[in-house]
């Protein structure tokens, strides 16, 4: 009896020591919390969360001043990751901040552009090129789809277009497990 207890205790001590060692040994040096949150946010910089960009929102979350469900471009998955990171409950996207939609990018109908440069000023990531009184255009790979340039345009020549899927960007579907088949019966 006693020896069994001793053995148990011994094993527990050894395992505990191993765990402790492992946690010290494999500890990852962490980024500050704000960076970790910012890394999860999609960097669309659209301001729908109520903050002027992703980083300010990340700072607000880190300070506990904002909820984790305010970023529509990040969507459910983003909220889930934030919840994981911060050890919080998942909650659905708050509707007042917007809805999740597939990624789009802006397109300027160059025939109409009057070169007012308003869109360049609105663009948070400098994805629009052009000069005063000259035609403007979107540098598509840089556009985050934030839609901030759409409303300032006085001639309404900016439209959001969905990003089409190509053979290169196409994703294989998650395999569906058919369970309905009840054996050979």
């Amino acid at each position: 009896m006693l020896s069994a207890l001793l053995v148990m205790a011994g094993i527990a001590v050894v395992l505990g020591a191993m765990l402790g060692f492992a946690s010290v040994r494999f500890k990852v040096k962490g980024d500050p919390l704000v960076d970790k949150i910012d890394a999860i946010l999609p960097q669309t910089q659209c301001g729908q969360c109520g903050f002027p960009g992703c980083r300010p929102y990340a700072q607000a979350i880190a300070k506990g001043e904002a909820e984790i469900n305010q970023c529509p471009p990040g969507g459910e998955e983003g909220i889930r990751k934030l919840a994981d990171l911060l050890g919080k409950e998942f909650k659905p996207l708050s509707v007042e901040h917007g809805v999740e939609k597939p990624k789009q990018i802006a397109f300027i109908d160059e025939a109409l552009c009057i070169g007012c440069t308003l869109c360049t000023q609105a663009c948070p990531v400098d994805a629009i090129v052009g000069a005063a009184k000259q035609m403007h255009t979107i540098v598509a790979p840089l556009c985050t789809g934030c839609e901030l340039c759409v409303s300032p345009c006085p001639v309404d020549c900016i439209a959001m277009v969905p990003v089409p899927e190509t053979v290169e960007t196409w994703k294989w579907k998650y395999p569906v497990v058919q369970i309905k088949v009840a054996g050979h019966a």
Partner: protein
Amino acid sequence: MLATLFKFRGGIKPDAHKDESTRTPIAAAPLPARLVVPLRQNAGSAPLALVGPGQKVLKGERIGAPEGNFSAAVHAPTSGTVLAVEPRMLPHPSALSAPCVVIESDGEERWIERTPVDYAAESPDALRDRLRDAGIVGLGGATFPSHIKLQPGAAGRIGTLVINGAECEPWITCDDMLMRERAAGIVRGIGILRHIVSAERVLVGIEDNKPQAIAALRAAAAQAHGIEVVPVPTRYPAGGEKQLIRVLTGIEIPYGRLGTEFGVQCFNVGTAYATHRAIELGEPLVSRIVTLAGNVARPGNWEVPIGTPIDALLELAAPQAGTDRYIMGGPMMGFTLPRTDLPVTKAANCILAASPALFPPQGPEMPCIRCGACTHACPAELQPHELYWFARAKNFGKAQEYHIFDCIECGCCAYVCPSNIRLVDYYRFAKTSMRALEREKAAADAARERFEFRNVRSEREAKEKAERLAAKTAAARQAMAGGGQPAGTTPSVPAAPTTTAEAAAPLPQLDEAKRALIAAAIERARAQKEAVQPKNIDNLAPEKRAEIREIEARRAQVRELAKTPPEEPV
């Protein structure tokens, strides 16, 4: 003589089914009335279209120019007229579309001027360029541009060339028949490849279930020096590039590294043959051998012009009742074709008519019982059940840790799994998702950087402006204090971004009538500008013109997407 063969671990031995389609010689497939040639038929970047609708093309004329070095040209498979350059559905599991050149054949098969060259007199660089411009890509199915593989690596020379005639997948016999019938051409092609990299050794690996091919190639290689034809044990996937290199040389090339780094490179026999045609006959790659097999009345091999619709081919083979789908490629790695009116591409080595009798549907998927059968079968020496576990749980980090990208998607694991798990589908899902995530992350990082840069810049601008303002006030005050004129030293304030603010401001205050006027003006401008043709393009090189055309096409497409009036420029 070669001393020893090496072994690769894992592998399976499915029924070969090679006899059915090797009873008749390779026949030329009839020329279809219309061909659809996808521009992108190579791994790497898609070529740019060189032709436009209405243009006449000759057989072998370039219709797509390689875009950058990691690309290969595309050619008209016959003479005729270009009907359109537009997105068409590709033979790809995604069933997505990509730009294709549609050619109406004139039935004359008129070639461009062919310029055969003597390869011995050419420099390796010139030959590589020729291969790129002749559209030579790996014909085993991977369509990796061949000239890239022939580049000497940082580690130096390619001492050993491995020529892949293993053709390990069941049912496929296009390489087998090619070796039987055109061994001389293959050996000449091998000679060119060897010349380019100045390899000392050439090993041709052929599975030992193809005695005729081995004999034919041995006979043809007898004249050439230093080409050894080596029968390798029949075991799928002995024809996997890495597996064959391992069997013949003992070298293992890990994922993400090139054979060149290890002094060895591998080419398919079909590629060697195409190389011979491209260099010594001046004929670019415009056709390939395709095996038609499975549930068909007349299985066989056909030489098919690239771009031929698959249903036209199927007529030749006469699919039988019970066929429920068609597979492009073999039964181990091929995919179910979304439709059959899709074109034959350089990757299409086989079209299989599948029936439930030949390829019985799998039983229902059960949980993994960790039986280890998959581990035994995996030629990449992975732990497929662990990968499955992580992929299924979308634990991509772990999947990567367990080397999911080393998986060659050979399908051995799923073949042996008693639980009927579609393992490879899970890996494909995980791999493509991970690549998408990586792209997203790169984009997000770039956006973050640009956003931060922009913030810094606007801060700086604001500060500069404030300073200027302060300087100005100070100067004014000074002037006032001095009782004289304003100081001439005040810097002018351009404040570029703010000047146009007034353009937007007045708009809301306009009344209805004016707004209508503006709208009408906008409409006019739109109509006018869209009618305008691009100017000064007559003297441009065809490549440039093609580029312009492509951009215009893209614009038109995007405009359509944006649902603005669909007035396409020509």
